[in-house]
């Protein structure tokens, strides 16, 4: 089963949430941000080149122009490879674990897998971010020595920052899987 819904992030940008239900114990949520728009790319490039041309007319040194070209190209590559995250995926598999993947615009993927016996719970948390209060989904990890305590909080969808309505959707589905897990563990 697969469906796609449109939500917005905390700044009002467009976000698409894809849900894939492989079975009752394996679900995948995929939040995709809009791709790099041509308009912003053009405007940044034009600004850099105009500044470079201004400097060139001032000091008449042509290395400035070539440096500007290098800076734009390297900056674009660095931005695509290290900064711009296109898609964030949360895969939750019952009794196995939770996997978070963020795919960068250049195709690089960064994956973290958390085993289920380390997960204590999944909750929605409040945080102060810049001048506003935002909500975020996070995974609470158990302290290996004291199972009742929390050792670490891992935020999910860190770069997309979806709004509360989207988080609630994901939260409910995740809780279903976790409840299923708890029920079967106690039974067997």
């Amino acid at each position, binding site marked *: 089963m697969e469906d796609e819904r449109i939500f917005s992030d905390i700044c009002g940008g467009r976000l698409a949430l894809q849900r894939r239900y492989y079975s009752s*114990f394996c679900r995948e949520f995929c939040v995709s941000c809009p791709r790099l728009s041509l308009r912003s790319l053009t405007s940044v490039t034009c600004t850099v080149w105009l500044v470079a041309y201004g400097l060139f007319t001032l000091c008449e040194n042509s290395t400035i122009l070539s440096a500007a070209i290098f800076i734009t190209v390297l900056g674009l590559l660095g931005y695509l490879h290290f900064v711009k995250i296109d898609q964030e995926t949360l895969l939750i598999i019952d009794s*196995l674990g939770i996997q978070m993947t963020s795919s960068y615009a250049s195709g690089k993927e960064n994956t973290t*897998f958390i*085993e289920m016996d380390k997960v204590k719970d999944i909750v929605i948390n409040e945080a102060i971010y810049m001048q506003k209060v935002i909500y975020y989904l996070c995974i609470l990890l158990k302290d290996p020595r004291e199972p009742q305590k929390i050792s670490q909080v891992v935020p999910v969808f860190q770069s997309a920052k979806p709004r509360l309505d989207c988080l609630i959707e994901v939260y409910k589905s995740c809780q279903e899987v976790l409840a299923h897990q708890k029920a079967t563990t106690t039974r067997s």
Partner: protein
Amino acid sequence: MVLKAFFPTCCTSADSGLLVGRWVPEQNSAVVLAVVHFPFIPIQVKELLAQVQQASQVGLAVVGTWCHRQQESEESLGHFLEGLGTIFSHNPWLQLCRERGSKFWSCKATHHQGPGIAGVSREDHVILIFYDQRKVLLSYLHPPTILPDGQARDATASSEGLAAIFDTVSRSEVLFCKDQFDEGPVRLSHWQSEGVEASIFMELAKQASGPVCLLVTCLLSLVSAASACRLWKLWPLPFIASKLSTCEQLHHRLEHLTLVFSTQKAQSPAQLMRKANMLVSMLLDVALGLTLLSWLHSNNRIGQLADALIPMADHVAEELQHLLQWLMGAPAGLKMNRALDQVLGRFFLYHIHLWISYIHLMSPFIERILWHVGLSACLGLTVALSILSDILALLTFHIYCFYVYGARLYCLKICGLSSLWRLFRGKKWNVLRQRVDSCSYDLDQLFIGTLLFTILVFLLPTTALYYLVFTLLRLLVVTVQGLIHLLVDLINSLPLYSLGLRLCRPYRLAAGVKFRILEHEAGRPLRLLMQINPLPYSSVVRTYRLPSCGCHPKYSWGSLCRKLFFGELIYPWKQRGDKQD
């Protein structure tokens, strides 16, 4: 709980047979290690499993059947496989089946409720997880599971999460040593090494490593015996040695060599990696040093360097003289105390004069000294760089002297001013109690104090200016030395072997695993592909960094500024004081 079956990718095209593996009841998962083909005699299979179990301490069992429907007539085989469940009793009994022409597998897990009641069974959800046996076998999971001391080797396989799967596969290496083309009583299908290329060299190296290690250890013990000789303990020598970075570097390298060529086998993978890192960093060091040596000895570059060195020292001295003359006048329009200014300036000029004559006395020998220093590069680039840093320290000894004089004078003034300032407020420093107490002074004392305070205040700018200029010069030299030390440290501590391993064989250093969902069809078990998630480069460097020399002062910027303001001496004298504390 959902049942998880870990299945090796290399067995997906194997013929039908039995699944051999380990059942982990805590996680409700079965790790399949190999497939036993038909025909077999059940007793022999059980014997084989018992042998492997004894060698590897892993509870191996027949966990189910594997049916690859390509040629066989399907009906008869199905019944036959079900019958096998009664011979090898295992709970739950897995029944994996791959059909012809279909990508999707069917998988059944049957729980037999009691031994007597056949047919009453419960079926579970199953997830099929494919893993690459070779990569899982060779990979080393980070962070390593910490076992209590003493039971690291002989403990039975752990059952903590995914580490259990890695552990099971790596412990069952005995099973993978059996050749699958052997005409033995039991035919197995599993991952098998395709043989090591150029293995004759590997064998020769293995044979040679023992004697080489012994020889090097003997040589090293000789060297360390010589360095422990009592002659070196005479008074000035240990002090000088502690100040020379070359000695520190040589000592550091000696320790590395002793560790690398020790005849003991590495206890753990981390230690093995440490040894390999040390060896590679040393080899790189020596290679770079030899390159430097060949560069220096071609085209008489040493002669050119020696010729250029004396004029450079002269030039520096000349610049310093100019600087002093500028300070003795009215520097930057400041009006100084003329008499003190002249005295200080003459004193420093005389010092420079002394230094220049010393350098000129040395000049005939400089080329020979440089030639010998160049030879030391064959011990490694780091040694050569340390010697360079020491030479720099010796050549700029006058700057250091100026700095010490300036700092001492300035410190004296600051101390005097602060104690006199307490006198004005009717307080004094109580040495016994280490605190400021109030005190009533006489009129005479106050008068003398005021006079001294005035004199000190008016003389302070002159001293402060000299102190400032020479501190800046000293800081420049210390920065250059620091950069050289940083380079040495980089070569010393960079884990090159681990980085190379991460670059060429990413699966060897695993940070964990990641799963990919394979194509799915409703009503069939979910299929996942388990891949190794390699450790990021930053944590490779953090985990495997070799300890550096540790001969640098560890100041924070704040404490450095404080020390500079109060005229306390910075590097290298203060470091010794810290050790005494």
